[in-house]
């Protein structure tokens, strides 16, 4: 057995250390250790797609609870889906931070209404909000709908109310929104692709 000078000192050190310890009769700490417990062991896993850019990174969303009736699903961690052919588990800084998007303190939680000239939001029920918005839209449409232009051509358009559609909502939302907007005769209608 070869012993370098350094090892020799180490052996000496250990020897002196342990012998003095033994001499004093005190038990040293056990040379054992445990890592932090893996936090996702039985969390629920849901597959999703990142809502930011168009790379469409696959996500694994982990939530507390196993889906039991009395467990409220709380998202505790989001990471990349290793099976996804594009991102293969990777996520950019935005994707890696999605947990804080889901739980952002600036998430809207209930419908709100701001009256003309007011400085503040007031809560409003969904039902009241829908009814009031529908009323405003119908009144504007009835008043400003253009069935025919000055040449007498049928044009059936409504351009005094406009809409900007989302950039991150699903195809299903987009399709429904498109149907509704066109059925109302809306033309002032764009999505984020315009900018």
């Amino acid at each position, binding site marked *: 057995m070869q012993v370098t000078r350094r090892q020799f000192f180490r052996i000496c050190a250990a020897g002196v250390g342990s012998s*003095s*310890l033994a001499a004093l009769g005190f038990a040293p*700490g056990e*040379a054992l250790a445990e890592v932090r417990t*893996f936090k996702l062991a039985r969390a629920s896993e849901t597959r999703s797609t990142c809502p930011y850019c168009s790379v469409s990174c696959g996500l694994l969303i982990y939530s507390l609870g196993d889906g039991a009736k009395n467990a409220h699903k709380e998202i505790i961690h989001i*990471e*990349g889906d290793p099976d996804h052919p594009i991102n293969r588990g990777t*996520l950019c*800084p935005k994707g890696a931070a999605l947990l804080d998007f889901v739980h952002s303190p600036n998430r809207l939680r209930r419908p709100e209404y701001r009256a003309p000239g007011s400085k503040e939001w007031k809560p409003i029920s969904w039902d009241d909000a829908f009814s009031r918005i529908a009323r405003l839209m119908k009144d504007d449409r009835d008043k400003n709908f253009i069935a025919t232009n000055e040449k007498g051509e049928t044009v059936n358009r409504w351009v005094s109310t406009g809409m900007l559609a989302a950039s991150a909502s699903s195809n299903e939302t987009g399709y429904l929104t498109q149907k509704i907007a066109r059925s109302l005769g809306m033309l002032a209608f764009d999505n984020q692709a315009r900018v």
Partner: protein
Amino acid sequence: MALQSLDITARSATTTPVPTARQTTKVAKLIDISKCIGCKACQVACMEWNDLRDEIGTTTGIYDNPRDLSDQSWTLMRFSEVEVQPGRLEWLIRKDGCMHCADPGCLKACPAPGAIVQYSNGIVDFHEENCIGCGYCLTGCPFNIPRFSKKDSKAYKCTLCSDRVAVGLEPACIKTCPTGALVFGSKEDMILHAEGRIADLKERGFSNAALYDPPGVGGTHVMYVLQHGDQPELYAGLPKDPGISPLVSVWKGIAKPLMSLGIGLAVFAGFFHFVTAGPKEIEEEEENRS
């Protein structure tokens, strides 16, 4: 409780031998700076996985944010704009964080039993529940990595996601890295991977491309591929030849047994002096005479 989720090689301030029969594969993280875009995904993934949230700071005129490592930021990007070849700007971006030295200075310096542990796979882990907050690890580290928490006065640093590695997953930063600048595997494989990368870089004109696996700390379990392997200082001051400070080596090396021995000898010397030479007593008559 079976405290053996990973087999260990060393445990701070512990003099009994560790169970060494089981030797797990040595792992390593390889940081290929030539692929790093400095996106900070690793920073975010690290905070997210480890349930950390640093302060929302300010911008100081550079891209580095947060400005430094902290108890909440265990890794961060350091950006350097350099012109090695005149007129050819390079933006070198180095992920800074614990290097997981094979000969960890922090562990050597640590006086608290079990506050710092080196697993047999090479990970050097801080166990804050055992940390007493003395800050000795700061003096032991050749890379200036451990950071003190202002809240609990305990030292924190990258764990290489020992909790993930223990269940067979890669660390969070590795998984998230969009460009594959971070890779993880056995240290042997990582060295091979680095050789391939270095050959590629040499073909692209980086004739000094090299692997950074400094022998001064016995090699590291976090290694870099550097385009300019001859000048690691270009990368936000990466030390060229790091090692545990000789002061710390003496202090937690030879001084420890020798000084303990010295004190012990002094005590024994007194004792044996007493039993051989005996006490200095004034004779009774002299006492009475006075």
